[in-house]
């Protein structure tokens, strides 16, 4: 079941088309990555989900019905351009932002205590934000984003502004929130975090969706029959055996082992290759080379740009 759906969203700015019939379906309890080069329209889409800007065309659904302003209380948003009131005290500010999301003061107070203790930042309660370091401000910002325990969390480039320690903290929290049943959408260029976190992605380039689906499925669809075999023995005999069934793409030796990367011909299976090599060498490893999201990203975007 989809928690959130944006269907055929079009957004036209005066001088360019930011989104051209973009659709995303976000399954409940998943982590959904929104990928794309700079200027692809990711932030515009996230702003539309948060009802900051209105789409020119298209429909938005939340929990199966049309998205309405009341749903903002069930959404937590960490924009790419983020900050806090510098002159305001940390605790007061966190309370204020929580109340704007519709929490009662008492409820917000209890939850803030919990999070401030968890992150060991209780001592900052009465400090002004400007007295905190950038990393400290990020922690406070993160707490204010998730405090109201939203069903849907939206992070725009969450890892770009955060230092590595806070970024990994954020990653762990994202996984924990998923476990607790939250649904998360985030946009990023950091393909490493996509591999680690995402269940589904949509890749937007030049205002259009060019790739979408489950991360695993996408990888499987994009693999190109590449295998890597590790062995000990005489390489010449191995190549001789493989000749005619596949092409050797790459090879190298490491200590006693030889490694060869091969692209199998269409009708040759992994088992076929193994049985070819087994008689002539001692096989130490055998795996199919699955493309990384980074490779897929570059391949797909460049293919579209060349068109």
């Amino acid at each position, binding site marked *: 079941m989809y928690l959130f759906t944006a269907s055929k969203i079009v957004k036209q700015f*005066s001088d360019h088309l930011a989104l051209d019939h973009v659709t995303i379906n976000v399954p409940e309890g998943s982590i959904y990555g929104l990928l794309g080069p700079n200027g692809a329209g990711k932030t515009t889409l996230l*702003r539309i989900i*948060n*009802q*900051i800007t209105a789409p020119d065309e298209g429909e938005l659904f939340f929990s199966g019905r049309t998205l309405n*302003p009341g749903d*903002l209380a069930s*959404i937590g*948003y*960490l*924009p790419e*351009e*983020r*900050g*806090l*009131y*510098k*002159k*305001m005290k940390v605790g007061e500010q966190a309370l*204020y*932002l929580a*109340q*704007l*999301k*519709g929490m009662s003061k008492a409820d917000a107070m209890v939850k803030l205590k919990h999070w401030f203790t968890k992150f060991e930042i209780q001592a900052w309660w009465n400090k002004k934000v400007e007295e905190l370091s950038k990393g400290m401000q990020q922690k406070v*910002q993160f707490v*204010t*984003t998730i405090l109201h325990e939203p069903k849907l969390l939206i992070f725009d480039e969450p890892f770009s502004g955060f230092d590595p320690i806070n970024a990994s903290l954020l990653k762990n929290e994202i996984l924990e929130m998923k476990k607790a049943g939250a649904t998360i959408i985030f946009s990023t260029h950091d393909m490493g975090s996509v591999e680690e976190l995402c269940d589904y992605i949509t890749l937007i380039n030049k205002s259009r969706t060019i790739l979408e689906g489950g991360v695993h499925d996408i990888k499987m669809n994009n693999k190109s029959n590449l295998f890597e075999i590790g062995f000990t023995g005489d390489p010449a005999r191995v190549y001789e055996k493989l000749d005619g069934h596949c092409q050797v793409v790459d090879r190298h030796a490491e200590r006693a082992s030889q490694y060869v990367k091969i692209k199998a011909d269409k009708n040759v299976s992994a088992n076929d290759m193994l049985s070819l090599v087994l008689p002539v060498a001692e096989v130490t490893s055998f795996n199919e080379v699955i493309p990384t999201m980074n490779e897929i990203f570059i391949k797909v975007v460049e293919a579209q740009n060349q068109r």
Partner: protein
Amino acid sequence: MNKIGLIIWREYLTRVRKKSFIIMTFLGPVLFAALIVLPGWLTQVEDREVQEIAVVEYDANNQPVPDSLQFFRDVVPDRENMKFIYLHNAVLPEILKTYEAANYDGVLFLPQSLISAGGRASVEFYYRKTPSMGMEEHISSSIEKFLFSNKLITKNISSEMIEALETNINLNRINWKNWPDKQADATDVKRGLGYVGGFLIYIFIFMYGAQVMRGVMEEKTSRIVEVIISSVTPFQLMMGKIIGIALIGLTQFVAWLILTVGISAAAQQIFLPATIAQVTQQPAPSDIMNSAADFEPTAPAATTGKAQAAEMFSDIRQQLGQVNIALVIGAFLFYFLGGYILYGALFAAIGAAVDNETDTQQFMLPITIPLILGLFVMINSFVNPMGKLAIWFSIIPLTSPIVMMARIPFEVPAIQILASAVLLILTFLATTWLAAKIYRTGILMYGKKVSYRELWKWMKY
């Protein structure tokens, strides 16, 4: 609490706790009083410096005259800040030649041919420092007066007779409407109230308008704005800020009102000995002058100043009784709020459109011009509150908050107040609507130098 209420509360609370607000609240009335008193005091300081003027007299044949033949001796009497030295046998070119060495500040040349001159005649006055208007007036009127009586004396009219010729007229303004009750006229107090009210609105619009602008810029540059507008609409955020700061203005106004009443009450306590207080406690409208006059001969010389002050206070109090204070305060609140929201929305739009303070200049000008125009027209309507200029500018919404305040203590026809109020409300609805459009787009726009053309585009989104 609903969301806009939360925003208002935050805007109010963060500002009311600021040291600058507390200091301004206490210092405001003092500064305001200083603003009124200071210019007068400064001119006095300037005038204390004594100027020495040499007077050179020539006879009818254009020859220097000896002491015994001087006709114009002591024509121009000395003043606190001017001293006239009457030279005899002085040759004008000789005196003027000594420009570097002489210690006169000026030389006044009086030929005896003036005695018979009629109509317009000129007198030469050589100066080092451009003479003040007061000095010019003093010199020419003294000479005129002397020549006038001299002419009468030659016609055999006695000096007693001449004195009897002089009458000074004080125009006693009485409001016709109140007849037969000849209430002492309250025009002076009305003018004062109108001036203070209009000026306060001018200052408040600028002061709090700028605060709105800075507040919006703060949210934009600190990048918190997108976090906030994922919880509330941009319009709620903008209006919350404008209203919150309006409440700050009202708080300051009420605090100033209380302080001013307190200070003037304290001042009365100092200036009013018990006896005078009794006199002023029943201010019989028509004989206020008499009571003061009755009092003066019996008062010890030292308290005369106090008696004058007492008279002034009771006079003001009595005149205030004739002004519709409730109307003035009500109008102040209305025009302050209306004018402030009208301009505050525009200030908010500017704050949203720019990235830093220096870029605000180009957009400030169109806001500043009508405000300053309003101030000038207000000063004019202070002289003539029912003139055409005053009437029109008190109806045009961009200037009406300032100009109408100067007129409101006088009896402004209800239809004019109504027209001005309705137009003001319509205009501030229009400006907030327009400003909200610019605001909505502007707050998410970074690193772009915005032009008027760009703003126009935003309004059409």
